[in-house]
């Protein structure tokens, strides 16, 4: 509902006329199915490895705060065809944005974030099995999601930036604003990735979409607010300690594709 109210304002501004909440809410529901469908697409393995074997095994990655869970999550995410297909779609949609409406990238950038949230629930079962998992697993998963999405956002921004340069649409100030807004969305979406009954699909998607849109919009308006996003992430990361104690349903075999 929060997303619907937010989107209603934006659509009204764009359309220059009042519009009722119901179609916006329904539209939001349908829009959220797109990343869900992308995440669940039964795609074949990539013909070449996007991640060499030893990548992410450097100590740097384990020191980022998610122990041995972070390399595992990053390797898996960046080897999946779904991840790259979503990034290609994101950049392709970005290329359609006209020069005077760069801010629309904020909405396009939600696609990889939302796709990643669809599998957070499954990853809880693995996060909880790390040493100290029931206590720390929530925070580990949150951190792993953040770094994975930050890497994907950076890749998408670089690709989009190159397209803008090629098309002669490049505008440094706007691009920097959009970059800050994108990372603010990543930080705040990651911050709430253990909300909605510890990352349950749909619930967490709605929460994530609302928070990321608000955070991105505010930082686009005032880039210095990015610091506030980092603070929110850090704060919520500590609040999810013990979050996985409450999560059950580990007793089933599963293959996270």
């Amino acid at each position, binding site marked *: 509902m929060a997303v619907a109210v937010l989107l209603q304002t934006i659509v009204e501004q764009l359309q220059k006329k009042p519009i009722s909440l119901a179609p916006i809410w329904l539209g939001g529901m349908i829009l959220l199915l797109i990343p869900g469908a992308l995440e669940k697409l039964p795609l074949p*393995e990539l013909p070449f490895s996007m991640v060499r*074997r030893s990548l992410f*095994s450097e100590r740097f990655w384990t020191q980022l705060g998610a*122990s*041995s*869970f972070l*390399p*595992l999550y990053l*390797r*898996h995410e960046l*080897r*999946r065809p779904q991840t790259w297909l979503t990034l290609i779609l994101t950049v392709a949609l970005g290329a359609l944005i006209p020069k005077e409406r760069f801010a629309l990238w904020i909405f396009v950038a939600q696609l990889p974030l939302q796709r990643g949230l669809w599998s957070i629930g*499954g990853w809880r*079962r*693995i996060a*909880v*099995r*790390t*040493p*100290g*998992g*029931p*206590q720390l697993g929530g925070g580990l998963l949150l951190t792993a999601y953040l770094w994975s999405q930050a890497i994907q956002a950076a890749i998408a921004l670089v690709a989009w930036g190159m397209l803008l340069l090629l098309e002669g649409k490049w505008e440094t100030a706007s691009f920097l604003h959009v970059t800050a807004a994108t990372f603010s969305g990543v930080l705040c979406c990651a911050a709430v990735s253990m909300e909605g009954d510890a990352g349950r699909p749909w619930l967490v998607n709605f929460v994530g979409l609302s928070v990321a849109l608000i955070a991105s919009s505010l930082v686009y308006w005032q880039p210095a607010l990015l610091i506030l996003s980092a603070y929110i992430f850090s704060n919520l990361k500590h609040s999810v300690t013990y979050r996985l*104690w409450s999560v059950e349903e*580990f*007793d*089933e*075999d*599963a*293959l*996270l*594709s």
Partner: protein
Amino acid sequence: MKTLCFHEYKTGRGPRVLLDTDTQRDGIKLVSGLNLVVAPNGYGKSTFLQTLGGLIRPIGGRASLEESGNIQPYQPSEHALLISEYLTFPKFIFPHEWIEFMAGSRVDSSRLEPHWESLRLNALRNQFLGRMSQGERRKVTWLAAHASNRPVILMDEPLDGLDLLAIDAARALLKSWEHEGKIILLIAHQVSEVFDLSKQTLLFEAGHLKSWEKIAGQSAEQVSTDVFRKWTHQYYSNRTTLPSP
């Protein structure tokens, strides 16, 4: 020799206590080598294992790890590796990456080398877990347990889905862990595969752990698996209700 001792250690789901264990009162402690748990479904075996593995909080009490007079509080995250009956795997991960993750530390590859062959995983080293069968993935978890340097290994039905050759390899691993002084707590319904290796066999009675060796006055070396199977069948047949301590 390492031992895992219990002090009014209560496990269960929610407020319901399924098992109450106390080393001083019951004379039960887990010893280095294979500790086999045999009980019907619903008695709380997996709950006990998951509590020792840190997945569930104990309802009460504590456990301690003792060795040569040195007593330290038992910390699941530091001391135990839990191999669950149900296994969730990420599809695009190589076996050695999964082993490293489960072991929680850098893996000594020379320690694992002979076991890739004995578990017949050599040809699968370069395949994603998603391309393996469930039995092959379970073999990888056996390697992960071998790679781990934690002193307590908790295994819930780890023989499920293993072929005959893999069971032989798994038995060899169990023996090597015993030589290393590790405490292994293993739940198995098909006891015939590992009964002869057990240092201690534990039964559930009215919400308490009991030593089969003490009740029967025998040890695993003295009786065949068939005799043990008949004995436990009769033992549990006479106990129709679920335990409540």
